[in-house]
């Protein structure tokens, strides 16, 4: 029998209640990530991608937030059957989170060594001395020069790129099954972004960790992911192998996004803009959420929501559009 996937999520739903109104931020998301694989969850602001990440980590347990899920497994362990205490144990060891803003994710009054060391001390119960030695090892692994010296420095003494490396070091310290990286490079400059993406990719290859990369950047997703899932208005509208999805998008939203970003190599005079704006999570249109902005929308799209179904073309591709097959046929013709 083959290995179970690292992460398996079925029908995840997250609803926030604010001022008596229910705001469904995530409306039924399925995710599967295999060992050593990187899945990019691509979406614009408000699409529910970060909420999905937080729900998987179990960080949404607070009043006014309802998280429902049909199944959630991490490396074969059932997350839903666990006590809060057991889940807490997994956080930081079996699954870890890399945040966008490294400066606010690190504690400003603790040295870097103390913060990385805490992971080893809490989860593995090692001595202070040993924790320090392993912290230095981790800092070296992520490419911080003179790690033995810098281990006693505080977060503000590092540059933005270095701080992000420290977060990555903390994320991989206990060799987790899954790293969730929530916009890990959005706050960074282009030249530093390339370094961090390469670092995450290298660690994935060396340690065999699965990565869930949350991003809004089509370029970033293309650079490191094996599979891509595109989110729109709280749902996955298309997923598939990265190369196939970019070459032959099967959802008009994916196709429109790809046409709306300028190409460095082929500057055209006019970008094909998508009319309108993404819907607010509080007021998602009936039928297909993208229908009001879609140039293929028909009457059916406005009344009946298309389910995410497997496509005949490609390997393991899914799309939620009434016109997917017709789109692919047109592209291939």
């Amino acid at each position, binding site marked *: 029998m083959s290995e179970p996937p690292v992460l398996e999520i079925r029908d995840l739903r997250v609803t926030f209640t604010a001022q008596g109104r229910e705001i469904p931020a995530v409306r039924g998301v399925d995710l599967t990530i295999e060992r050593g694989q990187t899945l990019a969850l691509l979406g*614009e*602001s408000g699409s529910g991608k970060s909420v999905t990440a937080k729900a998987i980590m179990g960080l949404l347990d607070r009043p006014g937030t309802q998280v429902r899920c049909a199944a959630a497994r991490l490396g074969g362990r059932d997350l839903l059957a666990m006590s809060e205490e057991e889940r807490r144990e997994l956080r930081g060891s079996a699954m870890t989170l890399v945040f966008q803003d490294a400066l606010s994710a690190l504690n400003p009054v603790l040295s870097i060594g103390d913060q990385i060391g805490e992971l080893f001390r809490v989860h593995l119960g090692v001595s202070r001395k040993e924790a320090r030695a392993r912290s230095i090892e981790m800092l070296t692994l992520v490419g911080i020069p003179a790690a033995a010296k810098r281990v006693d420095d505080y977060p503000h003494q590092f*540059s*933005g*790129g*270095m701080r992000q490396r420290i977060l990555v070091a903390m994320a991989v310290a206990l060799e987790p099954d899954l790293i969730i990286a929530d916009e890990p490079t959005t706050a960074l*400059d*282009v*030249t*530093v*972004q*390339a*370094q961090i*993406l*390469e670092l995450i990719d290298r660690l994935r290859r060396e340690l065999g960790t699965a990565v869930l990369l949350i991003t*809004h*950047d*089509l*370029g*970033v*997703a*293309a*650079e*490191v*992911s094996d599979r891509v899932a595109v989110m729109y208005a709280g749902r996955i509208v298309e997923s598939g192998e*990265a*190369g196939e999805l*970019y*070459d032959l998008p099967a959802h008009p939203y994916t196709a*429109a*996004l*790809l046409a*709306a*970003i*300028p*190409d*460095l190599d082929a*500057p*055209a*005079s*006019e*970008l*094909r*803009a*998508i*009319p309108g*704006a*993404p819907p607010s999570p509080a007021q998602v249109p009936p039928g297909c959420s993208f229908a009001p*902005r879609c140039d293929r929308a028909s009457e059916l799209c406005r009344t009946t929501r298309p389910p995410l179904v497997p496509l005949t073309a490609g390997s393991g591709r899914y799309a939620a559009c009434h016109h997917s097959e017709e789109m692919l046929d047109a592209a291939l013709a």
Partner: protein
Amino acid sequence: MPPSPDSVPGREPVLRASGLHKTYRGGMLSRGGAVRAVAGVDLELHAGETLGIVGESGCGKSTLARMLVGLERPDQGEVTFRGRPFFARGGVPRDIRRRVQMVFQDPLTSLNPRMTVHDIVAEPLRVHRLARDARAMRERVGELLTLVGLSPDRMNRFPHEFSGGQRQRIGIARALATEPDVIVCDEPVSALDMSVQAQVVNLFAELQRTLGVALVFIAHDLAVVRHVSHRVGVMYLGRLAELGPAGQVYGAPAHPYTMALLSAAPVPKPRLRGRSRIMLAGDPPSPVAPPPGCRFHTRCWKAAPRCAEEEPVLEAVGGHYAACHFAERAS
């Protein structure tokens, strides 16, 4: 005054910056050190063209933008509008202010939340006395909103009732109100969602076509800048590393920093993964203590001893300009 390296003979630029320097000192964050935000920038902007400025955070591009509209006074050097200096006695003359406008990055914080869209767009009309009476003002505001693709009947609403892309349109309408010759845009699309960015980028292109306004377009997104700009300047730590026609700067970069920047940009093409890329080591140095000589030499793979001592100036390489001792010259 030495001619700017990219001057076109016989054509008077609308905006000219020469030898601009700006240093911020003493603030709480600088820990006693002075931040050399802009350290010697010369450039020219011609009527009806778009000059793109790219660079990473801390390279001084926003400070440059603020000096180009007169919001910030340079410590050294001068900005002139059609040959007239910005900083005369008592500040920037009102008619120059009217002709040089700005669009800001964050459309939510740059629009007063307690003013209606009408009042926001009408404010420059009032300040510069461009409308005869309330009725003419209303009419003009309606015209401006139509111009940027917003419906005039929404002018009595407040900024929070609009989406991000629409708010940026309001900011653009406000900048257009005084019929400027130049609009300086500081990261005008980077706060917008990808699906909305293209709308605003297209709007700028269309406005330039129809109104002939010259744009300075500052952004960190290389592809967006390439898309909108006729000419592009690449900034690194307060100085221009490279300047020239967009096709040449992107197609045949001469400065190692430009090459690295282009090479590092993520490309939305999974098939190109694994291509050889230039990986720069480390982060950009702090502008509090820029390295001596060429500012880029600490991260440059071509650096020689000379680079640490002698600061390169912008020199012609083929059809454009680069500040590097070892600039690639197109053969």
